[in-house]
């Protein structure tokens, strides 16, 4: 492994904390893979070796797990993982057109990274925000109700190095490495940023309030 002393020291401390969360230490593997991505920007050979040594596994066993999951990247990832949902509902609502324009603007296709290392582009599967279709995600933060114009503005801002603000998420999207650290289970102090909900999330509640409805005052018998 080629980690310098201070990086390795931090990795070891973090790995120790992760292992402590589970009664059986192999369960620490998924968060530990997120952790090495937070340092290397992908699951590097060093990262695989590190996880293997920490958990008493072979490098082959770690690789077998890492290659199963799409969030673990096998090549150095862009600073921003940009996804356009092209599953059926988002695609029909305009996601296909957004994908086409964004891909043209970035000059890269699915699972490719721009030459400047800013954006790794991806056709997303459903991200559980269908009532906000068409949806995009940047480093797994929600960008709701997108249009080709807002989508192009978003990638232009990222390519220009400007901060971008999700619809439901922190004040600005952290980098891929920063987000990977959260996914390893380490809080980053951003939980209280952003709204509780988007408008569609509250649609039913609002409708019920307008009508003065309360639970269990009737209901479908």
């Amino acid at each position, binding site marked *: 492994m080629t980690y310098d002393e201070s990086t390795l020291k931090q990795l070891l401390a973090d790995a120790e904390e992760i292992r402590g969360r*589970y009664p059986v230490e192999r369960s620490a593997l*998924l968060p530990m893979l997120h952790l090495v991505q937070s340092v290397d920007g992908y699951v590097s050979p060093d990262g695989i070796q590190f996880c293997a040594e920490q958990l008493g596994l072979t490098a082959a066993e770690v690789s077998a797990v890492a290659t199963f999951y799409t969030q673990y990247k096998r090549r150095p990832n862009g600073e921003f993982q940009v996804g356009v949902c092209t599953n059926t*509902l988002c695609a029909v609502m*305009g996601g296909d057109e957004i994908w086409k324009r964004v891909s043209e603007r970035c000059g890269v296709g699915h699972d490719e990274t721009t030459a400047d290392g800013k954006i790794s582009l991806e056709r997303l599967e459903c*991200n*559980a925000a269908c009532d906000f279709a068409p949806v995009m995600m940047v480093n797994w933060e929600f960008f709701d109700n997108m*249009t080709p114009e807002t989508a192009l503005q978003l990638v232009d801002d990222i390519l220009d190095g400007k901060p971008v603000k999700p619809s439901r998420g922190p004040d600005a999207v952290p980098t891929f490495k920063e987000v990977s650290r959260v*996914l390893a289970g380490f809080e980053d102090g951003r939980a209280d940023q*952003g709204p509780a909900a988007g408008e569609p999330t509250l649609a039913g509640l609002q409708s019920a309030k307008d009508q003065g409805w309360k639970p269990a005052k009737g209901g479908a018998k």
Partner: protein
Amino acid sequence: MTELAPVLSAIWDQDKSWKRDTYVKSGGYSALKKALGMEPNDLVQMVKDSGLRGRGGAGFPTGMKWGFLPPDDGGPRYLVVNADESEPGTCKDIPLMMANPNVLIEGVAITSYAIGCNHAFIYLRGEVVHVYRRLLQAVREAYEAGDLGKNIHGSGFDLDVTVHAGAGAYICGEETALLDSLEGRRGQPRLKPPFPAVAGLYARPTVVNNVESVASVPAIVNNGVDWFTDMGTERSKGHGLFSLSGHVERPGQYEAPLGITLRELLEMAGGMRGGKKLKFWTPGGSSTPIFTDEHLDTPLDYESVGAAGSMLGTRALQIFDETTCVVRAVTRWTEFYKHESCGKCTPCREGTFWLTQILKRLEAGKGTDADIQQLLDTCDSIAGRSFCALGDGATSSIVSSVKLFREEYERHVTEGACPFDHAASALFDYSSEPTTEEAHA
């Protein structure tokens, strides 16, 4: 007219609704204190009596699942919350946990006490970082307030909760694949039996419950069985989140008694977009056979939807109007299943690949009449022939759409092209003609 019933969604519009303080002010964590004063078996019986059924899709009675755990043998037993919401169309658990993670944590504590679990896990899909932040914070705040940890509120009951992020794999929503993933392995389903109740996480007795199921428990404890059973239909009790998406005026989360109809929900949601005609919809996500406007008055409960030939699933109502090409929609779903098949079972792994080949050919107008029959034959070779339900789900939209819209498949063959203008389905205006874009950045 069925009335909406905001229970889980009741405080989502409050200022900082995700904070513990907000939740406590509206009565949060009082059910936990009440539950800790009860016998665990009485809690299990209470949830059995409430008729609460799994809100993750299968609809298995929650209390019965808890009751399946073998008698205490002194070793650990686990609660694992399935928060891997990834089924296309399903979008209820993610907003629930973003707006109020605390109701889930309270539900986890009560459920764990009821089943004798001292270490519970919440398996959250990895692609929702902000939800993970809020869950991590809610768990930390619960420890600080003594709602988790050692000797909770002097009861002698200990509970640790670990919130675990997945890494992008739909299959991990299948409960045994989820357990393998949580054990640090590739997320591939296990052969059942043994069921998780007998040999689950680390081969120990385990309850796997969906987020919404567990989050429904505190209100049942607080308000009682009768309050819950007053809502819903005879065998589908209580409230549930109905997620409307697609071509409706006001898509979103509508929490209602089970048994409400799409006609009623559509009215609350302002009707179809631009007054267009409803063409087809999924009652419970992309794995459930599609419905049409003939099913507008089908009560959305487990029995009625089942009797009408589909499944209530996750109440993910994806609504498509007359501008939508059903072949395009089904092709895209099928590509999803091909992508997400874990590869363990041959019928699913190979079958979803071939289905995709045939459908793409048909959608592009290059298919033949024989292809339509081939689709159905291939579906026959997949359904019921794999460890888990992913392959079955892949066939649902195909078989149901050929049955309901065979003529539309045939038009793709006879016209040699898709007869629909895709731009007409989008929420914004654009021309379907190829455009010349500006130079690449």
